[in-house]
């Protein structure tokens, strides 16, 4: 039987990336992942060993995030564009930076359920089946949220004057 802690450890990078995308803040992502991992360790007996561990963790992370959000509804969290792009993966091209900032702002305009689905599929390192399980919705609902999220993002980006920059390689 693979050690629970080893499996948990393997999931942490994807959990962190999803948490980072949800919170848009590295420190909050750190805290969220630590809370989630702690809770997983404390409640490991609730995990059904037949299934993959990651959807169970993702579901927990999302619940923690939503709880936090409810608590902080009156205090919008602002992240400077410079903070968001201060990493080696960022393009150094100004136009691309602007396009990324536009994507970031467009993402925030999506309804929560669509944003959660899209970010999970793209950044969570999960299959569609696992994503549906994580979000506790049927597969058809996941695909429909994904489709609407992508269509809405296209619309939002098409409205922007810089929309041609996003095609840059």
């Amino acid at each position, binding site marked *: 039987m693979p050690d629970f802690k080893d499996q948990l450890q393997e999931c942490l*990078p994807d959990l*962190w990336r999803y948490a980072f995308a949800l919170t848009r803040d590295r420190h909050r992502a750190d805290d969220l992942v630590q809370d989630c*991992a702690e809770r997983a*360790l404390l409640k490991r007996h609730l995990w059904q060993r037949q299934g993959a561990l990651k959807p169970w963790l993702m579901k927990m992370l999302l619940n923690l995030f939503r*709880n936090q959000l409810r*608590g902080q509804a009156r205090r919008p969290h602002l992240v400077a564009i410079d903070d968001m792009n201060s990493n080696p993966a960022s393009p150094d091209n100004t136009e691309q930076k602007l396009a990324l900032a536009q994507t970031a702002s467009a*993402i925030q305009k999506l309804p929560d359920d669509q944003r959660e689905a899209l970010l999970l599929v*793209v950044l969570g390192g999960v299959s569609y089946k696992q994503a549906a399980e994580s979000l506790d919705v049927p597969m058809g609902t996941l695909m429909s949220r*994904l*489709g609407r999220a992508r269509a809405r993002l296209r619309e939002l980006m098409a409205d922007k004057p810089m929309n041609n920059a996003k095609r840059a390689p």
Partner: protein
Amino acid sequence: MTTPTVTTEMLHAFVDGHLSDADRARVEAHLATHPEQAAEVADWIAQNDALRSLFPAPDQAIPLPEIPEAANNPRAPWRMVAASVAMLGIGVALGWAGRGQVPVDPAPLDVAGLVQEAMVAHAVYSADPHRPVEVAASEEALLIRWLSNRVGEQLSAPDLRANGFDLVGGRLLAVAEGPAAQFMYQNADGVRITLFAVRSDNSMMAEFQFRQNGSTNSFYWQDDHLRYAIIGDLPRNDLAEIATRVYNTLI
């Protein structure tokens, strides 16, 4: 039409890299003859690329947190996590309480006064046989909305059924710090506990404190937004368990 069976789901799976080689080839052939869909798919790919650039994978290994039962793990705690501080706080508070002491409050806040007010409200309303709450649990959504508006922070009434306590309802209180919410719960034996919450404008670390007043016990804690007290005529350990659940629900 080279491929009559390319579905929207397949286009998504193509973009997300979930297709087999054979299906990928089919989608590519399909897109070659369907420029509108090809443009759509290209945009989706650009969206994915942008998301991956915006939110890159962590650049450092993430250690697992320390938990009490893993105390033999030699790794040092990676960082202070509010939850673990609070869990520790319960233990510490229980330890102190066991010696009949009240923890020293380092904050300039009037914790004792606040808890005293919460305890008085508990005594007054939990003993009221006719109208213990203003809004009953049957109108929970209304109750939450109303109290959240008045207190000025989003509140929630944690589910304590696992501890045998059902939500009775809640009421608005006026305390020195301003409007406060009181949620009342009751178990099958008719024992009532109340959860008290008032807005807090400090940004202290979460902390737990235990108080005892006759047979009435209470736990107090605070976070960035709210200060809480949970009060009940329950044994300390039972109340500690409930306080932990409430804390974990509300973080």
